[in-house]
């Protein structure tokens, strides 16, 4: 039986980490050790940053995973995570050699990756686990909770652009009892998985996921959201500036958004190469969004003699009320 939405079962504040009950996380680590030993070092780096919070986040995410995919879900998603991590590392190594991302157009990426339903399933569940199994993404997850979610009213209406696996939205709704969320994604597999995760988290009554191109959202729903979530989409676009305008369009004046993007971080489907954090900041400002806080996080290890440091950046932004703030 899963805990009620919003309740994190493993351990209360003050509970020694050694006595926390994390059976699913223990199982994941045991499986990684037996089947993907080369990944163990990275997982330990993620856990050692903040063991208690890591355990809490991981166990809840894994409970949802098992509820959505059954008992074998952990092993299958871990296999997908290991494959995804290898894909990323290989892409980064080729980027180091070539000095540019391999893909230049969205059409190319869609044909090679997004149109393959089976591959997309593994891709999305693999990314779901990176939210806490990659050390720098766990930092982003904590930023999401501590800096973005803490600002939201309990009955906030959120719009999530490209929810992917749906983990961000489910996390927000599970912690904001009266909140609601609309999510829009171009991928049918994403809609399916995001719905399954919402159901597993017990928040499906407050989450609605629709198959729709995020860039088309500018035509509808002006100023309908108290807050937006847009995680790791900007680097997948040919012209990301348009997406920031969409976020501005959707937000009520004063509304906030959590936006993340990848910099000098290759992936099989990354197109737009951000090199500096200021580029994301400038795109936000140009679209009428005030940048309140940022976090730029990077992996603890890189390829030997790397020219590029892959970073993930999170921005907490607010729709400006006038020209200045």
């Amino acid at each position, binding site marked *: 039986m899963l805990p009620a939405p919003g309740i994190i079962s493993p351990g209360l504040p003050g509970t020694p980490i050694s006595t926390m009950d994390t059976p699913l996380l223990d199982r994941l680590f045991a499986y990684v050790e037996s089947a993907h030993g080369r990944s163990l070092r990275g997982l330990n780096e993620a856990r050692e940053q903040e063991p208690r919070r890591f355990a809490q986040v991981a166990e809840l995410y894994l409970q949802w995973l098992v509820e959505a995919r059954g008992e074998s879900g952990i092993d299958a998603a871990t296999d997908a995570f290991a*494959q995804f991590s290898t894909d990323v*590392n290989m892409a980064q190594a080729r980027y180091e050699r070539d000095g540019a991302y391999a893909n230049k157009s969205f059409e190319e990426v869609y044909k090679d990756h997004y149109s393959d339903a089976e591959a997309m399933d593994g891709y999305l569940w693999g990314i779901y686990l990176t939210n806490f199994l990659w050390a720098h993404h766990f930092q982003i997850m904590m930023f999401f909770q501590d800096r973005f979610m803490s600002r939201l009213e309990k009955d906030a209406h959120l719009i999530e652009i490209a929810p992917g696996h749906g983990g961000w939205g489910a996390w927000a709704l599970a912690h904001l009892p009266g909140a609601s969320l609309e999510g829009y994604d171009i991928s049918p597999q994403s809609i399916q998985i995001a719905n399954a995760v919402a159901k597993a988290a017990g928040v499906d009554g407050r989450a609605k996921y629709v198959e729709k191109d995020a860039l088309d959202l500018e035509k509808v729903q002006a100023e309908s959201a108290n807050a937006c979530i847009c995680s790791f989409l900007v680097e997948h676009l040919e012209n990301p500036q348009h997406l920031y305008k969409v976020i501005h369009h959707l937000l009520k004046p004063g509304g906030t958004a959590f936006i993340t993007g990848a910099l000098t971080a290759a992936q099989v489907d990354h197109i737009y190469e951000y090199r500096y954090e200021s580029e994301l900041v400038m795109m936000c400002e140009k679209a009428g969004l005030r940048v309140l806080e940022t976090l730029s996080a990077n992996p603890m290890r890189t*390829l030997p003699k790397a020219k590029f440091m892959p970073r993930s950046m999170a921005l907490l932004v607010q729709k400006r009320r006038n020209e200045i703030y």
Partner: protein
Amino acid sequence: MSETLARLNEVFQDVFEDEELSVQAETSAKDIDDWDSLMHVNLILAVESAFDVRFTSTEVAGLKDAGELLALIEKKQA
């Protein structure tokens, strides 16, 4: 030791900067402390260069030991 395994051993020694390293078919990450997911990719690129072959990430993600890598090299060269 086959010629391919001998060459692969040199690549391992170079990548992990250990001239004493003696790679066997059953050598895995458990035997080489630094053989983590990132160094695995570094190793794969060095193998590609040494043997003039190219791998996909799907081919290399699940390799369990040096023997499986050796078999993959020989398959590519066949």
